[in-house]
């Protein structure tokens, strides 16, 4: 099973690898000395992977320090040094156990178009196959046909959904869903929310209200808040993580669309600067295409 997961993640990251590991290999193979030019090239590769300027600098400085201190010249060892620096960042904050305490309520947040609704379907499917009873709350009452979209997924997965009409107050939907989940003894309630740009104050206030309603139910439910991030996004994802974390204290991140050619490099600065763990990664359009994020594996595959 673990092997299988590794393979799947690996396949989804082939493109990432091509652009990242391939380029690093090339760089190391062609440059014998580790001078300014080498690090400038390395900087370029890292920045092209959406790692962002700040974290790129940190990786380079750490690598440079280790290489100089230990006087490393061997090509394989140089690569391993870069790898271990990156892995250490990825492993930050991952030493906790991932189990969810039921009954639980999960609030899914994020900007527009990152794949929140699809991710909810995948999560529901995953928990259901683990034998839990799951319920969905259609909290995106803003976007046209968002409720219908979630309804279709609920139907496919085979879980109940609590909804209201488009334009209804999303907080009231969440409230109703919490009541329903309580009385039906639901294990996991997953709440969809409308996509909102993190710089829109009024929308963030609306979110904060939903968050408050969910927090009020913490006598009965364990509360989890996940931010969905698009792997294709650039360093803007950093400010998304920062703002959403401020409003709804995030418990984790779900990184979607890793099956594209996107590198998902943004995980590195996010972990480096905000210490929010990455819970799952989305690697396809199917219901099963959701995997636990394994920092070790991720680093391994990047540099394999």
């Amino acid at each position, binding site marked *: 099973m673990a092997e299988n997961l590794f393979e799947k993640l690996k396949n989804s990251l082939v*493109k990432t690898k091509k652009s990242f590991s391939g380029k690093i290999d090339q760089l190391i193979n062609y440059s014998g000395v580790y001078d300014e030019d080498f690090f400038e090239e390395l900087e*370029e590769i890292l*920045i*092209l*992977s*959406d790692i*962002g*300027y700040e974290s790129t600098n940190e990786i380079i400085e750490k690598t440079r320090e280790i290489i100089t201190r230990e006087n490393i010249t061997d090509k394989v060892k140089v690569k391993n040094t870069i790898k271990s620096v990156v892995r250490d960042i990825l492993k930050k904050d991952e030493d906790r156990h991932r189990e969810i305490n039921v009954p639980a309520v999960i609030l899914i947040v994020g*900007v*527009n*178009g*990152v*794949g929140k609704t699809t991710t909810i379907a995948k999560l529901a499917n995953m928990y259901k196959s683990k034998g839990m009873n799951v319920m969905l709350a259609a909290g995106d009452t*803003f*976007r*046209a*046909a*968002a409720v*219908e*979209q979630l*309804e*279709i*997924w609920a139907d496919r997965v085979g879980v109940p959904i609590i909804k209201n009409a*488009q334009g209804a107050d999303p907080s009231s939907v969440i409230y109703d869903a919490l009541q329903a989940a309580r009385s039906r003894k639901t294990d996991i309630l997953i709440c969809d929310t409308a996509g909102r*740009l*993190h*710089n*829109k*104050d*009024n929308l963030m206030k609306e979110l904060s209200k939903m968050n408050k309603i969910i927090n009020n139910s913490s006598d009965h439910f364990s509360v989890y808040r996940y931010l969905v991030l*698009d792997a*294709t*996004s*650039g*360093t*803007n*994802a950093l*400010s998304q993580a920062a703002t959403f974390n401020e409003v709804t204290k995030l418990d984790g991140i779900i990184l979607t*669309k890793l*099956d*594209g*050619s*996107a*590198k998902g*490099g*943004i995980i590195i600065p996010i972990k480096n600067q905000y210490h929010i763990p990455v819970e799952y990664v989305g690697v396809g*359009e199917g219901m099963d295409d959701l995997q636990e994020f394994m920092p070790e594996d991720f680093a391994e595959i990047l540099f394999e």
Partner: protein
Amino acid sequence: MVFEGLSSKLQDTFKKLRGKGKLTEKDIKEATREIKLALLEADVNFKVVKSFVKNINERALGADVLKSLTPGQQVIKIVNDELTSLMGGQPAKLEYSPKGITVIMLVGLQGAGKTTTAGKLAGHIKKDSKKVLLAACDVYRPAAIKQLQVIGNQVGAEVFADTEEKNPVVIAQNALKYAKEHFFDVVIFDTAGRLHIDEALMNELVDIKEKVAPDHTILNIDSMTGQEAVNVAETFNDKISLSGVILTKLDGDTRGGAALSVASVTGKPILFAGMGEKLTDLEIFYPDRMASRILGMGDVLTLIEKAQADFDEEKAVELQEKIRKQTFTLEDFKQQLAQMKDMGSFKDILEMIPGAGKKALKGIDVDEKEFVRSEAIINSMTPEERNNPSIINANRRKRIAAGSGTRVQDVNKLLKGFEQSKKMMKQFSGLNNKKHGKFKFPFM
């Protein structure tokens, strides 16, 4: 704000340059290095940054800049020029086909905002008195067709949908046939989101394109996309030859990397930018105006256009008349509030004013709800009260507060504000026939 991070960093750099009467080569080197970092942090593609900085360097080190009396200004001008040309130089217009139907095909990754943009575009084209058909070709995402139908309904454009047919190529053909038979001027195809590396789905796009022969094949790209934006644009361009780009979600605090990279890499113009959640929030993309917004020089032209588009001229004349005769009532006040709301968020408007960059606006938190509250208060008044606010006594105030869900203080504040604006108007209208005197601007 658009390009927030980039904007403030570049402005900091320029501040240093402006203060100097003479620039040395070293100053320029330092400035270009800062520009480079600012662009990289803004997710501008690495290769684009390299050539951009090289251009700046070459031009800025030219003799006429260093010898100029205002070298700092010269450098800013150069950056402004280069930014403009990076984003395509001249604004591009969406041309209609001279005869027959104009066919537009929207393509892009998942979640780029194609369906919303299709609706916005339909609304935009309708303003040119064209009959627009929206064709729902996304058979994959659950409820995508429904979404387009709802949006089509909102903008008042007909939607062609066939929920039985599972082949988007067939749907596209049928939609085009339908459009021809029913004399539509424009048809917009909303295609499913797809990854540019997905062979099968990309070939499907090629098929659709062959069958409907679009006049415009437009890539929708999320402004928040990172370094990958360039690969996405290049692949779509290679496969189906794009004619233009629409940037979506530019109202996020995106650093604008995609905006600055895509046009220069593909050589295709950016036609529009999506600037908000409302279906009217689609702006024509002007590279020069965008460049001055990035450099904190404001965008007065867009501001004026917005005001012209949203203010009803007849009403404005009427209002002027009322101000002159001093018969301005709360009813008129309410209409003004509604017009302000139509122009979009107050903050967005402020940002277009020159010098009103992020820093200048810091701490100014415009509470958009204030407008709603004022409207509610006025709505809770009787017509008589609106036309003659002086009759509003304590009892009436209590009733109005209860009716509008506000407090008596809020009602008082509004009435006071209204009296003050009336006084101000008196001063204005009195200007012509009285001696010029200094007058203060009481505000809200």
